């Protein structure tokens, strides 16, 4: 579904040139959830920016759905590939109602039946139709991120790029949004690329993941390997040990929430 080979991105020019990606390669199969972890500045978000077409200055080969990607993306591409951003407070237009936010992509792609689509999208992300004419400032962080997910899904894309979709949310809401994303992925057989600095989130969602550091993928491994703490690369081991203390607490909290059942 997605093939990336020797992808390079350099920010700046001349003496101030700063290589953000130094030739990375990976492949994601259709219907797979692929994780990319790494500390901030490792270039993991840059990968998503290149894939989505937001960043146009790169070299290497990127193909999506067996079509090689070049500078500009056409409208059909945007219908196939959508993205959910990190900060739900920044990714929704402050002066647009939920209704307008959701119906705009429908209008851009001339899909028609805007009202029915908006109502269905709200239902799918578990938001009551009473939210339809609210402004983002009348919503909580979790509700906003649900709207952002609904906006990404209203075009019925097959690929969803997730840029730290839960890191701006508090822990209880994180689980809700992750469960929502997992459910939607199963129902619609979506392909996800999930970028996160949080190993627990990636382990929860993905089967395979890449560990990035300073613009290169240092290791690609499966979640089983991660769980058994058998990574080969010392940096991965360091990441795991750094997250262990937190990991256990998070796992316990998660178990409690799951036992209580899903609720707000």
């Amino acid at each position, binding site marked *: 579904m997605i093939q990336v080979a020797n992808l390079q991105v350099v920010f700046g020019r001349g003496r101030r040139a700063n290589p953000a990606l130094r030739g990375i390669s990976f492949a994601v199969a259709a219907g797979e959830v692929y994780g990319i972890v790494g500390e901030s500045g490792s270039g993991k978000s840059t990968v998503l920016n290149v894939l989505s*077409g937001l960043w146009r200055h790169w070299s290497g080969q990127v193909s999506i759905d067996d079509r090689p990607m070049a500078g500009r993306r056409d409208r059909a591409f*945007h219908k196939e*590939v959508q993205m959910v951003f990190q900060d739900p407070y920044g*990714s929704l237009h402050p*002066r647009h109602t939920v209704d307008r936010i959701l119906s705009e992509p429908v209008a851009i792609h001339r899909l028609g039946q805007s009202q029915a689509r908006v109502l269905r999208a709200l239902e799918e992300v578990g938001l009551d139709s009473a939210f339809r*004419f609210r402004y983002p400032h009348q919503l909580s962080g979790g509700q906003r991120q649900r709207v952002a997910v609904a906006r990404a899904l209203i075009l019925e894309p097959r690929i969803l790029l997730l840029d730290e979709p839960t890191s701006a949310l508090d822990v209880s809401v994180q689980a809700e949004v992750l469960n929502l994303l997992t459910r939607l992925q199963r129902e619609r057989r979506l392909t996800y690329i999930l970028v996160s600095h949080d190993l627990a989130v990636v382990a929860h969602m993905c089967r395979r993941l890449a560990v990035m550091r300073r613009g290169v993928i240092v290791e690609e491994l499966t979640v089983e390997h991660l769980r058994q703490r058998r990574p080969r690369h010392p940096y991965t081991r360091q990441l795991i040990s750094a997250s262990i203390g937190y990991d256990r607490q998070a796992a316990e909290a998660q178990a409690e929430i799951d036992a209580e059942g899903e609720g707000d």
Partner: protein
Amino acid sequence: MTATPATRPQRGSLARCRAWLLSAAPQSRRQARLGRAYLAWRHFAENRLAVVGLGIIVLLVAVAALAPILAPYSPNAPALTQRLLAPGPAHWLGTDELGRDILSRIIFGARLTLYVVALVAVIAAPVGLLIGTIAGYAGGFLDTLLMRITDIFLAFPKLILALAFVSALGPGIENAIIAIAVTAWPPYARIARAETITIRNTEFIKAARLQGAGPVRLVWGHVMPLCLSSLIVRVTLDMAGIILTAAGLGFLGLGAQPPLPEWGAMISSGRKFMLDQWWVAAMPGVAIFIVSLGFNLLGDGLRDVLDPKAEER
């Protein structure tokens, strides 16, 4: 925010209306928009001075609209037997050197003032907004080109540039309006560009681009609405300056021509009698002062309401 005691007893349609406006779950786009407007109004109304400013502007509009009914005398017909009368029961604000009633002239002059202010705002604000948002959004060469043009206009003092334009176009109120509009847009372009540059890189613009929105849709539907509030505030605060520039041009004989009752021209003709018949120049001066004050108070109030940072509450 709680309801004020004065409005509490009326529990009928008014309360229902308010509940409808403040509903957390609006049923339509219109209700959502009206609810927002109502909240903004409540916030605005908390500022007493701003309400006073709004009152002055509303009064100005009403006086201009009802000038033929309100004015006790004709504004232009001379009555040489009644020259330079002091304010009194017959002529509340006195008469000028041709015996014309100053109150009537000020009332009719309100129309000219409003005409100038409205036309300048209607011409300059959209031009500035368009140039600023396009420059800010496009960046690169277009940005440089548009901003250097803006810089050229900004390099001249406003009144001097307006004077140059009027003397090239010929005196008259329409030419004065064009001249003022031409000198008024550059600051708006600057503001709009600055706002656009901060908006351009936000995630909601990126999200819209990822949905396939083109540049026209982005600038018109996403960037402009956010620039609008700071622009409205700036235009309102500039109104006083526009009035003063128009009056200045009138004073110099380059704006409205006699016998039009333009306030600046009235001060100019009253200048000759400043020491003995002070009211001839002072009364239109007071009118300019009050209206300018009104626009400034209104602008301050609007700034409190429309400031994007106050939005979060």
